[in-house]
């Protein structure tokens, strides 16, 4: 019978110290803690958590295996539905997915499903059995565009089925947002991301970096000249949005993508690397999602006084609850119901502040979210020398523009059916490239779904 103890707390780095370094914030459970937390699960007959998991991981079963100390078995149960548990355990918005639906959450605290998943995932990265033997090579080849979670998941499934798979990545390093976007203090690059990528390579997947499909090669040349039987597009949604307000091109205004790419991919905070980063004394980050939280906490760690400016209220912040909580602990200032109307510059063209207005929440719109409206006469200024725009991203139009017959929606997302088939024969797509900016777990799931569809497609040829 389930153990009626409170949720086992997870150890974290002290906020005052971690706000000055890039080491991981959360230490995660050790085995003892994990087993204890696992004992809280009721093993529901109709598990609500599984229904709320975007890829339907058999949560009670993996927790039961874990509870019995059968770690390999727990890992195998997760593997059936997710290929990146140590990553998803760290970055999934559990509070709106599995944990948000956990029956224990109604009266008390839900099972710490994310932390348990992370524990099992990390255990597997360190001790897990080598990946199950792959099917014999079938002589067919698939090209995967992009090495984010969608591309990695699609590639590993196809390799297991016996396909020869090559991932083409535009940047010099594989991993997509996991490498250039999400910071080290949330997702360790060497210990976790690099190992997950090694595991994909161990299945025989090749990764060629510095290839911008649409420029270096095209989807047509991959299919017609390089002999690939199918292509999977997992190119993400990397294009930053700006607000279109005056002063946005002043020196000191950057997109969160630029700021985070300099810090994460280019290691700008490490003196051994050549790439510069400009942090200034006071940083304002505009936005309220995970990207905004990552940017503001990175700025803080680089020594700035860092503030979030968000036009709705705290309740609407789209970021993971844990990140908002951590950001507050680290001394990030939050200015809710505030919207910038202009970036102010000095006589040299550098940022000296942002002009903002206060907002109030009006009537709910179609999506049910209450849309913010400007409070008349509420203008004020925040002094700062850097403004980071974290307003969301959209897919890069390059692939659609260079591939005949590949249709996109009005928002620039690649059109694909529920199996990932696009409007072009032999070309499949999934992840942020199809949905617009979403989550790691959805991108991973879409990659795996497409792998099945690609297999069926190639068999039908």
């Amino acid at each position, binding site marked *: 019978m389930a153990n009626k103890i409170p949720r086992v707390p997870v150890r974290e780095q002290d906020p005052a110290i971690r706000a000055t370094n890039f080491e991981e914030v959360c230490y995660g459970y050790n085995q003892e803690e994990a087993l204890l937390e696992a004992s809280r699960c009721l093993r529901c007959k109709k598990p609500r958590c599984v229904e709320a998991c975007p890829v339907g991981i058999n949560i009670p079963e993996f927790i039961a295996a874990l509870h019995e100390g059968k770690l390999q078995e727990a890992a195998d149960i997760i593997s059936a539905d997710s290929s990146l548990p140590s990553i998803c355990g760290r970055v999934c918005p559990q509070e709106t997915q599995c944990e948000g639906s956990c029956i224990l959450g109604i009266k008390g605290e839900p099972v710490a499903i994310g932390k348990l998943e992370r524990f099992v995932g990390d255990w597997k990265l360190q001790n897990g059995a080598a990946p199950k033997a792959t099917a014999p090579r079938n002589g067919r080849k698939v090209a995967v565009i992009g090495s984010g979670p969608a591309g990695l998941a699609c590639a590993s499934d196809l390799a297991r089925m016996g396909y020869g798979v090559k991932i083409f990545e535009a940047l*010099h390093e594989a991993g997509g947002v996991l490498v250039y976007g999400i910071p080290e203090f949330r997702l360790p690059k060497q210990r976790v991301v690099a190992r997950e990528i090694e595991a994909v390579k161990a299945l025989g997947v090749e990764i060629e970096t510095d290839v911008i499909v649409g420029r270096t*090669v095209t989807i047509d040349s991959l299919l017609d000249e390089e002999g690939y039987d199918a292509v999977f597009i997992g190119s993400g949604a990397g294009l930053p949005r700006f607000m279109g307000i005056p002063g946005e*091109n002043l*020196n000191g205004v950057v*997109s969160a993508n630029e700021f985070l790419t300099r810090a994460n991919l280019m290691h700008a905070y490490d003196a051994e*690397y*050549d790439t510069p980063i*400009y942090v200034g004394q006071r940083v304002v980050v505009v936005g309220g999602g995970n990207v905004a939280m990552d940017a503001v906490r990175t700025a803080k760690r680089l020594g700035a006084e860092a503030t979030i400016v968000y036009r709705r209220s705290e309740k609407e912040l789209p970021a993971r609850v844990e990140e908002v909580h951590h950001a507050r602990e680290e001394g990030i200032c939050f200015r809710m119901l505030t919207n910038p109307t202009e970036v102010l510059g000095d006589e040299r063209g550098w940022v000296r502040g942002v002009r903002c207005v206060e907002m109030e929440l009006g009537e709910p719109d179609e999506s049910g979210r209450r849309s913010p409206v400007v409070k008349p006469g509420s203008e004020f200024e925040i002094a700062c020398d850097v403004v980071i725009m974290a307003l969301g991203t959209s897919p890069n139009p390059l692939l659609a523009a260079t591939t005949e017959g590949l249709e996109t929606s009005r928002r620039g997302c690649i059109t694909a059916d529920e199996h990932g088939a696009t409007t072009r024969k032999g070309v499949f797509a999934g992840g942020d490239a199809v949905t617009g900016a979403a989550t790691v777990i959805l991108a991973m799931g879409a990659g795996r779904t497409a792998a099945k569809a690609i297999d069926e497609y190639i068999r039908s040829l």
Partner: protein
Amino acid sequence: MYPILEKRLLAEGIWLMKIHAPRVARSAQPGQFVIVRADAHGERIPLTISDFDAAEGSVTIVTQAIGASTRKICALEQGEALADFAGPLGRPSEFVHLPLEEVRQRRYLFVAGGVGTAPIYPQVKWLKEHGVRADVIIGAKNSRMLIYTDAMRAVAENLYIATDDGSEGFKGMVTGLIEELVEQRGERYDECVAIGPMIMMKFVALTTRKYNLKTTVSLNALMVDGTGMCGACRVTVGGKTRFTCVDGPEFDGHEVDFDEAMRRQGMYRTQEQRAAAIEAEREAGHVCKIGLDK
């Protein structure tokens, strides 16, 4: 890794390198650039494709050592390799896509400044190969800093040279030479393409505007990824924000906000570098018009 097949000094601090990069060589077109990283700690910096040979699988870059990253690249020797060489990026020059009949009706004037001479070369060569007439002006501080003159002479209809000190060709700036060609000698052009330091492109655009001569410039904004992902390369063209790496690098010079573009180039410049840049401008005999001294 991308091996350096050949390395040659063209002028003080300006090196030509032929890089083994078969995929880039196969797809390259005039007007495009690559993103280069010297080694695992290196910065990603943009360099224009100065020549390419698909059969040999090689791409030529010409780099002027002006800062840490360009110096690191120039310090590599033949037989060594660049860590990364990604491209071709950006849109090819407009004439590559236009109907050839239309392009053949035109007469081009290319204006090259300093290291910007190298990227002009594949464009003029392409036009020559397609039977289009193009004159070329090369500008440099002095005769020792001139590059690509022989190669250019072979592909240009007329080659003109301008040096600041008059040590070769016309004495003065390229803008003075443009004025002479158009006003004194009555030359007529349908389009001008200017590549060089931002300040030069600004003044070329101001000069050609007088003649209503359509002018294309290739902007060397700061970049990180070169694929549209970061927005570091934002410029204002015709009142709209554009990303140099995907919407350019070539733009209508009469529409570009050069003052903003020059200011943005200094975004990561330290105080020290700023002082050095002002000094360099003074040395070149320019009055500082671009706000470097601020």
